[in-house]
């Protein structure tokens, strides 16, 4: 079967990763940033699966990792959303440009 090669997947996931980073860098809404993080995580998971599929098919490790990633993503978004709610309650908005208590 002539299918897509490993490189194709890798380049694609790199691209997806860059999209996620771009979102991280430019979005001003915390929730939107969180969604960008999900993109990044997906890009990483895709890499795992790609390596598993093309290089280490017998070794189940590469396939198991995305499961962990999903679990971690779940935990992460739970926490992040809780923080967002708390922040919103406190400041009534979610602009990251104003969340600068780490300044200087």
């Amino acid at each position, binding site marked *: 079967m002539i299918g897509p090669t490993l490189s194709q997947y890798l380049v694609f996931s790199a691209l997806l990763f860059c999209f996620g980073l771009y979102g991280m860098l430019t979005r001003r809404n915390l929730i939107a940033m969180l969604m960008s993080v999900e993109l990044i995580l997906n890009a990483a998971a895709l890499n795992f699966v790609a390596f598993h599929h093309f290089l280490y098919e017998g070794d189940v490790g590469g396939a198991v990792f995305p499961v962990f990633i999903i679990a971690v993503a779940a935990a992460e978004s739970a926490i992040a959303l809780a923080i967002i709610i708390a922040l919103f309650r406190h400041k009534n908005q979610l602009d990251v440009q104003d*969340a600068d208590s780490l300044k*200087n």
Partner: protein
Amino acid sequence: MTSTGFWFIDHLWLVPLLPFLGFLVVGLFVQKSGERPASSLAILAIGASMVLSWGAGWEYFTANLGRTLVPLKFEWLRFSPTLIGNMGVLVDNISVLLILVVTTISFLIHVYSQGYMHGDPGYPRFFACLNLFTFSMLGLVLSFSILQIFIFWELVGVSSFLLIGFYWNKPSAVAACKKAFIVTRFADLGFLLGLLVIGYYGKGFDFIYLTSPETIKNLEQTRLPLLGVSVLPLSAILVYAGAAGKSAMFPLHIWLPDAMEGPTPVSALIHAATMVVAGVYLVARLFPLYAATEAGLMTVMVIGAFTSLFAAVIATTQFDIKRVLAFSTLSQLGYMMLSLGVATMDNPLGFTASMFHLTTHACFKALLFLGAGSVIHAVHSNDMRDMGGLRRPLPITHATFLIACLAIAGVPPLSGFFSKDEILAAAWNGEHYVVFAVAMLVAGLTAFYMFRLYFMTFWSYPKDMHRFEHAHESPLSMTFPLMVLAVPSVFLGLVPFSHYVSIGQLEHHGVSIGHLEHHGINWWIAGPASAMGLAGIALAFLLYFHPNGVPGKIAFAFGPLHKLVYNKFYVDELYLFFTKSVIFRFISAPFAWFDRHLVDGSMDWIAQTTLLAGNKVRSSVTGRLQTYLFWSISGAVILGAIVWQIGGTVGWTLAFTGLGLVAMMFIWQFVLQLLNRSEPLKRIKQD
């Protein structure tokens, strides 16, 4: 340890050790318990070692004459498997002679100090230091290797420092001790370099090894890569620099007159009889080495002759009683050096004469100093213009002082006559006629200034009645040593000295002892010498026996010349100028500036630039997540780009960039300094 079968010689190592123990005990444990225990312990220690050394001397001169014995030897410091610094005890005629001189005079001076130092708050300290000095001096004399002699050499220097600075709350004494130490230290630098040369090219430090003909030949044939100079004269001259420092040869003599700030017994012991002859002793120890090189001997002779004349001239104008004696010591040391310089391996008369004069000089000069101390003790002044007519209140001091003056003036048949005559004869026989003439002149000058001193102090008339009335003879502990010392000052010349002392290890050089034995009095030389001495005395009598205006008029007539001599040819001022202005201001201060402003400034500059850059960058630190993220990603990208672009030469690039940066920083900092724009970091406010 190689036993020699003679008890005293085998136990000669106790001779330096006993005073050392005395020093430890007195210095550590009896500082607070008054005068008596301190002085008794110190005198006990030195007395015991005196007895031991006389025993050893007896054994040596009766049974082992001319032999070189090594009763003790051990490895002290291993530089490399082939170069080993040994320590031990070397017994030959000059070392035995010197320990006799040192222990005896030291013992007498300990006794004398008991009276002289009475009531001084530093009494126990004084005795501890005296013992330390005696230990060092004896260790020096008995040294087995040149390394060992260097060690004790330094120790002697330190004890001298401590003793000159004994009255340490007197600023002049402080300056004097500092000066003495630093000047001799400077000379020791030469010695140290000589030691290095000898150690590297000679591959050994032991005297026996160094003075063997093979080593000397080896040294002579080795040439330095630079200029192709032979190593032998170089090492000889370098070592001589050390000797000249300790023996206060011109131009390193400046510390000795100042050293008179110490207590008088110290002047007598260290700066007249023993320590200052260490230089002479060192040259004598290495004499075969010097004798093999024309340049070395010439240096010794010329500097010796010049110093003796130079100091004698100065001595005629001084008024401080101890300084006159100090310059006289300088002059006599020059005499001894000169005498060594005219000797050769084939005609070692000068060597013997030098050792002979060293011995007799030790006796009469110690006597002179102790006498002067007795006078100072009585009138509480050093200035001869405050004295006069003291022969009546101080009869014993006067009598012994006169003997010493006659001895040093070379009046027959006192000891000085014989030793001086031998030196003159040696100079004549060596065909060094200029030196002979100088020595002759110095003999006359010596007699003149000594009797100038004598007449001004004991005759004339009392100039300060108050002092005169309070003057009284010193206690027995002080006069006893005077009387004891007067005996050898008179009779020591009658000892057939050349029978006992000559160049060691003659067997190496194929000269038999019997060959040297004869030296009678050559009246063609001795006669004029005595005449010179008597003339000097007569001149002093005319000028100073009764107070009159003639000396003042003569001084006035010579005007600037007199002033020049009176101020010791301004050598001190020259040194002072050099150290204070040149070294301190033009070398040391710029270095300090450089360190503070350029080197440290550069470091500060880095910090400051970082801070300023930080302040700039700070505006970009917004506290916002995204900014941080942006920069971290950019950093990663840049690192990645570097790895991508540059291959294996990163290290070189980094190293040279670093070096270049350091250089740039210095230059930049220097420019900032010049523009007065640099800001030390401390001024930046901390937040």
